[in-house]
């Protein structure tokens, strides 16, 4: 299978702290890949490096054959990486529908002039955006909340909305940063089903950070374990999770 994401020797320092060092990873097209590790291991930093929030000191990131190292966040989004955040970052004061429509920003375009003067392009694209956004909301079972203000949604729905917004950018690779954080076992179960569904429905490649071992061992095909900014183990989920070193560093005896 072809590679979707190829990361080589990625590294970044903050002052004297080497937050991520010699990080390499390769995710195949259509794969569901997990990134785990203890708190402070540098998992979210890796996501921030992949999405251009931080610029790596060393190494390269290749997305679907295209070098995206050092690009700006917005460019990387256009290149095809979408993400969610550990602490949910929705557009809180905007309606749910507009959150998803904001995600469609680069999929449906019209000029500012067309927007202000209400030219035909405005009505045509807005209609397409409304339809597409409603489709996505339906997939994530949020279509009943389309007109509600995003910050007013319950926690689980906010998480789903964030994924819907990310999917609206029509990405090649979806990064999920602890999607199950703060969820109860039932919600986690639903989330697992939803992730599997998204993967099948959109033929999506997914890289996720997670602490919930049930979720990780349930849906991830391959894992990378990060510890103190370095790769501790890499490979098929069951092999990695039974690795004595991983158990010692992360899972506990």
């Amino acid at each position: 299978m072809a590679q979707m994401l190829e990361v080589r020797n990625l590294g970044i320092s903050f002052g004297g702290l080497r937050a991520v060092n010699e990080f390499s990873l390769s995710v195949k097209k259509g794969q569901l890949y997990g990134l785990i590790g203890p708190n402070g291991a540098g998992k979210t930093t890796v996501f921030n490096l992949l999405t251009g929030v931080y610029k790596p000191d060393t190494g390269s990131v290749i997305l679907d054959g295209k070098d995206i190292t050092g690009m700006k966040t917005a460019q990387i989004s256009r290149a095809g990486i979408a993400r969610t955040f550990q602490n949910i970052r929705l557009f809180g004061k905007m309606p749910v529908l507009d959150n998803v429509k904001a995600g469609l920003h680069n999929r449906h375009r019209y000029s500012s002039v067309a927007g202000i003067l209400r030219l035909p392009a405005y009505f045509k694209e807005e209609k397409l955006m409304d339809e597409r956004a409603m489709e996505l909301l339906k997939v994530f079972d949020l279509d009943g909340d389309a007109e509600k203000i995003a910050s007013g949604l319950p926690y689980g729905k906010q998480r789903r909305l964030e994924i819907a917004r990310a999917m609206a950018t029509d990405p090649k690779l979806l990064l999920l940063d602890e999607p199950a954080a703060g969820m109860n076992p039932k919600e986690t179960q639903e989330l697992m089903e939803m992730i599997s569904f998204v993967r099948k429905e959109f033929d999506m490649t997914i890289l996720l950070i997670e602490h919930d071992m049930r979720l990780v061992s349930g849906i991830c095909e391959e894992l990378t374990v990060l510890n103190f900014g370095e790769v501790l183990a890499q490979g098929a989920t069951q092999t990695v999770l039974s690795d004595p070193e991983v158990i010692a560093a992360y899972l506990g005896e």
Partner: protein
Amino acid sequence: MRSKKLKNNLITYGIVVVAFIIMQSLSSAGMLSSLMKGLLVPICVYIVLAVSLNLVVGISGELSLGHAGFMCVGAFGGAFFSKCVQETITVPALRLFLAMLVGAALAALFGFLIGIPVLRLKGDYLAIVTLAFGEIIKNVINVIYIGVDGAGLHFSMRDQFSLGMAPDGKILINGAQGITGTPKDSTFFAGFVLIMVTLFIIMNLIDSRDGRAVMAIRDSRIAAESIGINVTGYKLMCFTVSAALAGAAGTLYAHNLATLTASKFNFNTSILVLVFVVLGGMGSIRGSVIAATALTLLPELLRGLNNYRMLIYSIILIAMMLYNWAPKVLEWRERHFGRLLHRNGKEVE
């Protein structure tokens, strides 16, 4: 949802149109005092300023304290243009229209250039630097001398004698004394048209792809970037559009005065416009229109209380902020007015 927004916008247009018709007919029936007549154009100016500042403060969420500076650029640019073409273009409405375009373009240019460094800052720092730029603009225009004679335009930043003009020369901009003798082209109708154009631009901009992007940046800059929105570009666009409209308002203002001086466009004016925006509700265009009108009319109608104006202002501001934000007050509102609001089909957040 679309129709709800449309209805909301139509109500705002409606309020302005009705207010215009009422005031215009009162005025032509001779039922307005000269004081009120004199206030009509300034009210239009302040409405445009408040609505345009709301785009930056309410919609894009950046606290700008330099709005008077852009108004100043537009006022002097427009007035200078009108002085130059006073003899060639004799139709007042056309001259005012062209002057507004010049004023708006100049202010937009300044907004763009100032926006590039300023919009790299956040929060309080942005507020302080916009304030500084507003004052810089005012002070620079305060020392500009421009005159015209047979040999062409003369420019100086020292005094009027260093212009070195021929005896028949005419001074157009006279430093701290500003511009005198700008044709009085501003009318209430022109102000009304400018308000309608401003509302049209701002409200349509907000309810479009661009507006969504701007509000997305306001709510979460990082998330907006992560979905591919060009943060700097949109902030700059907002700032420029807002400056351009402030410039047009400045031109309108200048053509209503016999003498235009830069000292008028000081920090207090910026704050005054900000007060309109805050009082009317951040992000609420209709609120800005109403607040600008009310707060321009009230001090004039209550002239006897002039000494206490700033005191009353600050008390109203504090009261409004508490009324809109304090959790206890929100609770109290919900308890006492909650049912009333719900019955009207509105939702209390």
